[in-house]
């Protein structure tokens, strides 16, 4: 028995010659990198169409929708990283093509925050929509609306021309200020 034990001891001590896999300082390096790694979200407010699908599928309550002052894609998701479990279902379900507008893959892995429950303010993936973009979108929308109105007018005129009846112009400009921000 003792001989056997000594043999075991010898074989264990062979491990001394094995180089440890912990070769890198994990404070600065990631040990294994994968393209699909699900980390912090990146949200592309430009392509998001505001379909609310990601909010609906999220198995936790991580996603809340932020309202934007546009007419069409008036919501964009924001993620509470403290609650998110990085399951990636929101990315799967997102219908935009070719690039999904909510992406987890390749995100940051070390997300830390103060442990106080109130600290969770710092712990969101906020969508900072720049003012210029809002303005440009509003402008574009305005332009589109104007164009549409014009077209409508034209159409109406055409129709009027056709039916030879005079119709009242389209009702007033929609009021954006009423929309929630």
């Amino acid at each position: 028995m003792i001989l056997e034990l000594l043999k075991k001891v010898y074989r264990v001590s062979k491990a001394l010659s094995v180089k440890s896999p912990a070769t890198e300082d994990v404070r600065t390096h990631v040990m294994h990198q994968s393209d699909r790694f699900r980390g912090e979200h990146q949200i592309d407010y430009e392509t998001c169409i505001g379909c609310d699908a990601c909010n609906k599928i999220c198995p936790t309550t991580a996603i809340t929708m932020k309202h934007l002052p546009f007419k069409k894609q008036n919501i964009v998701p924001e993620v509470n990283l403290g609650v998110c479990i990085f399951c990636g279902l929101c990315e799967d379900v997102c219908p935009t093509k070719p690039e999904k507008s909510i992406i987890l893959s390749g995100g940051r892995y070390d997300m830390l925050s103060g442990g106080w429950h109130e600290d969770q303010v710092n712990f969101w993936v906020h969508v900072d929509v720049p003012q210029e973009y809002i303005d440009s979108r509003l402008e574009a929308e305005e332009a589109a609306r104007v164009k549409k109105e014009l077209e409508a007018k034209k159409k109406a005129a055409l129709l009027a021309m056709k039916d030879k009846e005079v119709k009242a112009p389209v009702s007033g400009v929609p009021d954006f200020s009423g929309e929630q921000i």
Partner: protein
Amino acid sequence: MLKIYDFFAHAKSESLWMAHFCTGCCSLEMAAAMGPRYDWERYGYLPTPTPRQADLLIITGLVSKKMLPALLRTYAQMPEPKYVLALGACSFDGGPYNDSLSVIKNPTEILPADIFVAGCPPRPEAIIAGLEEIKKKMKAGIPSAASQGGLWKEMEF
């Protein structure tokens, strides 16, 4: 004299021993962080069998209602100075079990953690990064969060 005091403060921050206490599945990744590839012993962390010798309590994810008294008591029985690290979505806002019957939805409101590491479960790298952050806090002389407040002071357990 000041030098000596500084040395001991530094020593305290450099040697964090953690209480061996598993509350949820994040402890699997904690085991991986102990394992050969990540090897957190390189940075000076060591698990101890009893809270009496520990400096750090790791809330490894989910805290169920039945577990909460044990968690708080374990924390209370650790000697000063003591710090808390929270891992995983569960220990913050219930995570995937947010609408479950039996878990404490916000353990960090009851026992505030010094650092919270997000993820479900967080990668071992992230766990170690969180621990390093606690070291930084200790070096800066910031007192631990749980000693500042939190519901646990009002609770009986």
